[in-house]
């Protein structure tokens, strides 16, 4: 990844009405390597940006129990604890991000945002789904920094929580999800860009790679889990 080519985009509130443009420009200034992998199969043709197109979908996905989702308590942007096990009865989608990331994270969050849009249009589904985005960079991602990120992506704070914790308490959570971090000389943090889908009984049922994440399929996966008894 050549960070010298990167331009960081200010997330000022004045520019947020052009949020789509902002993200597109961010993409332009982002590692071509990462973007190529992420967009190779999901580049929109006619559909709106950040919505997948072209991939075949499955309406009856096979979602085996991968393992019990490791439990955790982390803090949201107003320093209230969020306990994963308190979310039993809801389907939970978890991502690991950091806000100064210029490559996979904004793309990943934008795709989650597109998925949230689909869920919201569905109404009933949205009420039974929670998104959690956990920062892997607690040193730089203060509660205020996460709050700015929430606003940048227009996340509904009631349903989509951005979580943090001090490094010592965060580390076991990362390890439990097989996530790791490698700080890079340019300030970026290398880490696996996966998303974790948890059913209403707290079991991990799907792991997505951002490179091939299709929010239309994730929507169908969530619906499939919601149709199963809690």
């Amino acid at each position, binding site marked *: 990844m050549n960070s010298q080519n990167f331009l960081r985009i200010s997330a000022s509130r004045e520019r947020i009405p052009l949020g789509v443009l902002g993200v597109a420009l961010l993409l*332009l200034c*982002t590692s*071509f390597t990462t973007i*190529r992998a992420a967009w190779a199969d999901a580049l929109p043709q006619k559909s709106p940006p950040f919505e997948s197109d072209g*991939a*075949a979908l499955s309406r009856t996905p096979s979602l085996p129990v*991968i393992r019990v989702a490791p439990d955790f308590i982390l803090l949201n942007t107003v320093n209230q604890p969020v306990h994963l096990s308190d979310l039993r009865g809801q389907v939970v989608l978890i991502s690991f991000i950091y806000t100064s990331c210029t490559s996979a994270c904004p793309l990943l969050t934008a795709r989650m945002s597109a998925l949230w849009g689909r869920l919201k249009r569905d109404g009933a589904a949205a009420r039974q789904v929670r998104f959690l985005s956990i920062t892997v960079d607690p040193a730089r991602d203060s509660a205020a920094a996460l709050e700015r990120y929430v606003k940048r992506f227009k996340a509904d704070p009631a349903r989509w929580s951005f979580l943090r914790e001090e490094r010592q308490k965060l580390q076991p959570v990362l390890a439990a999800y097989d996530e*790791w971090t490698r700080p890079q000389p340019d300030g970026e943090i290398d880490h696996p860009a996966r998303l974790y889908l948890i059913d209403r009984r707290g079991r991990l049922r799907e*792991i997505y790679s951002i*490179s091939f994440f299709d929010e239309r399929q994730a929507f169908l996966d969530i619906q499939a889990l919601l149709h199963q008894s809690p």
Partner: protein
Amino acid sequence: MKRGKAARRLMWAAIGAVVLLGTTHSAMAEICLSPYVKQRTGQEKYLYVWSVDADAKDNDFMAVIDVNMTSPTYGKILTTIDVGSKGNEPHHMGLTDDRTRIWAGTLFSNTIFIFDVASDPARPKIVKVLDDLGKLTGMMGPHTHYALPGRMLISFLSKADGGLPGGMAEFTNDGQLIRTIQHPDSAPYAYDLAIKPGLNLMVTSSFTAYRNYSKPLSQWNMKDGGNTLLVWDFKERKLLQTLQTGPVPLEVRWSLKPKAAYGFTNVALDDSLWMFKRTNGKFVATKAADLGKGCLPADLRQSPDDKYLYVSCFLKNEIQVWDVSKPEKIRLHDTVVPGVQPNMMHVTSDGKRMYISNSLLSTMDQADRFWVRLAHIGPDGRVKMDPFFNVSFMDFPSGPARAHDMLLY
């Protein structure tokens, strides 16, 4: 409104630029690995070679070769990691999606060794051994180790008793079994698997079972092998179609073009390449090229630009380069002779180098010397052997070893 239009125009320009520039960028995961494997950047440093003690009297091991061109020990074996047992028949291996671990399987002892390669890439460490696969999965002979996000999907050549059917098993990256998938009785042989995520499709191929491949080649029942490709709905892990090919289709290579619904396989006992292709919603398999009698195409690799296929002719001592830029009309482009019985190939992510080894199976090998060699691939797709890179696998303290599958760090 004007502002909105301008914004949209700029956005599409940005996306267009990203894609245009992205397509010329070559820093992607090596071709023929699972598409879910994280990209590696820069020139490779270490080549891991999964190695079989030649006479099975000493322990098998993973060899680490220095392939950093700027290193004073370039082209030398840096170390070997003893797996602590012999007669395993180390065969294929695969990286986890995050490139931190190598899953390395064995065909005789039905074991998977999980190596940590992230902590110290020069000295991989065994962190887990799955030595109860028969009991755990009901299957035998882990072959293709294919990364999924946070998981590994493994094809198995046999049922636990060495018979049929084979199938697949899915594990978490740290080795917990998630589920097994049996091949149907109507097409029970298993071998390779390859997924095309954008199409939600998986194709599996068919070799033979432990009851056959564990015997010396002269005792093989040549009729006890598969001649099918299976097309699966990947997301549902549901069989969609069974395609007939010549006898024993081995490696499965999807076209690298994102939306292209076709690929190739090397059909070992038919000395041919076959193409599988979706037409009007259904897949068909057809012979694409004859490779010449007595080739025994053992491995099949791709160039990152999707233009060439590399076929190792195990019995003809050559590697053939096929131009597949017109997939319906492929043609022989080049041939190179790397040495006796070339088998496994590993093409670098920039498509400029190919590492080659020359062991297939201890029951099939006829070569008396084992090695890892390097070929350079020119921009014209022509392949030339490197006269200086020649790593002998004859001089270990335990004696000769058969060099089989290879992975890069």
